[in-house]
């Protein structure tokens, strides 16, 4: 069977710091990483491949060329093919345009199951997985925390979804799209020592608009249906910040405060 994993390279936003003195977000020295939920998807696909070696795993991403080293490493951990879609005409695409680009490529390749992440730590709109489902006319489910690898075949998949109020198990006809959460604990394997510098160029598949043939204005900034008008840092209302020690006097202050406000 063939599994396609959609991934996104994102800035490691946990490393962003907010400076309350200057009301700015400090983004210095933030590196790019594979989005954690997406990494779980690739981790699961490689797990299936290790159990059933005839499984083919392809990773697909849209990214600028600068992230290539991260993609080469995916080929080094056992992904059969890494496709990256890159063209200046695509830059500035919103989720709507991005989904159209990715779907157009997916129409040219074969798949039984498409895996994506549920959340991306940068934009986190979760639009693309569902929109790919719409464009490819496939069922799509998010918040997947477990896939039954034994029950997986070309015709169906059994999986568990963590919802707001319940945990449910579903069976879905394939082809279809499952969006995994990192809580699934499927992990991307480490590169074996001997493979650290392995030449994987023949596994890399670069796709540009020469292949996809979008008309100008249909993708990128112009082809988008939403536009970022402005970005800003939210200012938080600072409070009194009366500092006390963790001693008798401090506890007395806290107690009086609570009593004064009616909490004790």
């Amino acid at each position, binding site marked *: 069977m063939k599994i396609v994993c959609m991934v996104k390279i994102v800035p490691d936003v946990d490393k*962003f710091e907010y400076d309350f003195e200057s009301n700015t977000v400090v983004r210095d020295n933030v590196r790019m990483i594979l989005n954690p939920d997406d990494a779980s998807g690739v981790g699961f696909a490689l797990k299936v491949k290790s159990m059933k070696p005839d499984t083919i795993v392809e990773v697909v991403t849209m990214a600028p060329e600068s992230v290539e080293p991260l993609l080469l490493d995916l080929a080094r951990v056992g992904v059969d093919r890494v496709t990256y879609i890159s063209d200046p005409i695509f830059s500035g695409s919103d989720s709507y345009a991005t989904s159209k680009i990715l779907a157009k490529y997916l129409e040219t390749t074969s798949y039984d199951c498409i895996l994506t992440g549920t959340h991306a730590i940068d934009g986190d709109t*979760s*639009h693309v997985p569902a929109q790919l489902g719409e464009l490819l006319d496939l069922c*799509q489910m998010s918040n997947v925390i477990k896939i039954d690898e034994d029950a997986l075949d070309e015709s169906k998949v059994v999986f568990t979804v963590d919802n707001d109020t319940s945990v449910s198990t579903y069976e879905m006809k394939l082809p279809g799209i499952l969006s995994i959460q990192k809580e699934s604990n499927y992990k991307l394997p480490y590169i074996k020592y001997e493979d650290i510098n392995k030449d994987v160029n023949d596994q890399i598949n670069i796709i540009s608009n020469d292949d996809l043939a979008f008309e100008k204005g249909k993708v990128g900034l112009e082809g988008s*249906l*939403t536009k970022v008008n402005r970005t800003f840092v939210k200012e938080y209302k600072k409070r009194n910040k009366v500092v006390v020690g963790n001693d008798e006097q401090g506890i007395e202050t806290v107690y009086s405060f609570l009593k004064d406000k009616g*909490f*004790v």
Partner: protein
Amino acid sequence: MKKSLIFIDNDNHKNSIDLLEVVRQIYVDDGCETYGICINHDSLMANNVFDKLIQVIDPDIFQNDPMIVTDIMEEVHKKYDFDAILIPATNFGRMLAPRLSMRLHVGLVADVTAIGYKDDVLEMVRPAFSGKIMAGIVQQGIGPTMMSIRQNVFSYEEKMSKTTEVIRYHPLKKRKSGLKLLDMNPKVQSYDIRNSEVLISGGGGTVKNFQKLEMLADVLCGQISASRMIIDKGIAPRNIQVGQSGKTVTPKLYIALGINGAIQHIEGLKNVEYIISVNINKNAPICFLSDLVVEGDAFEFIDKLSMKIKNEQIVTNKLKKVEPRR
């Protein structure tokens, strides 16, 4: 008159109905006819607050399949031609909204937390980069205003009762779902932190003994919540997580124990009346937002404050006992 449609998610009726506040803010003076839609469930809460309630009841429809629900929403939109379609950003809403927007070829803004007008254009504000930066987004192209809206951010206060017209709708298109529900287990949840008045919340500084928070929660009749670090370490379940990737909470009192206060956490605090933080670093971000900061160890604080509250209670009770009867 303008028309708006709100998807009522069976998982959270209140938050769905609260989206009427978003409608109110979009069409401030012009007014708007409000429609709600329930698919294979009923909503008593929606009665008397919407102008019209579209009710779809059909055992052949699998309401958990976003593809099927998209079919119905598309049909309903074609019939009524809405000016705005609003969907709560529940897990289901987050699957439905993008699918529907693609079907209608309409720009969608996700997880909206505020709206406003800039130069007469509706701007929808949403957090990006885990809530560290806010983005004001505008729609381009034609079609209805569409957004998914973060839960527990807007609340609808209008108390005027309306006579809701119920429309029974029978979808024409009937597609067979590729999805089959095999098993469902409701989550056992003794409380919902979104309804708590007093929250005792733990972060990285409480990893060693998170359970100890119960001691303080007991004496203050509060509930326990946590920052993402506690959840990521598997110490507490995700349903008590406060923050951008967790829940937005609105307690009267929030005691932050050993919480650093990354923006992603602070984004989950809304209209909190009082914040007390306990931290070994009095310059941790959360401290700037606090009324009172206790510099020190969280566990020591729990011991001392719980003891103090109990002792005071004993004294008060004794005083009550010796008071002469009248």
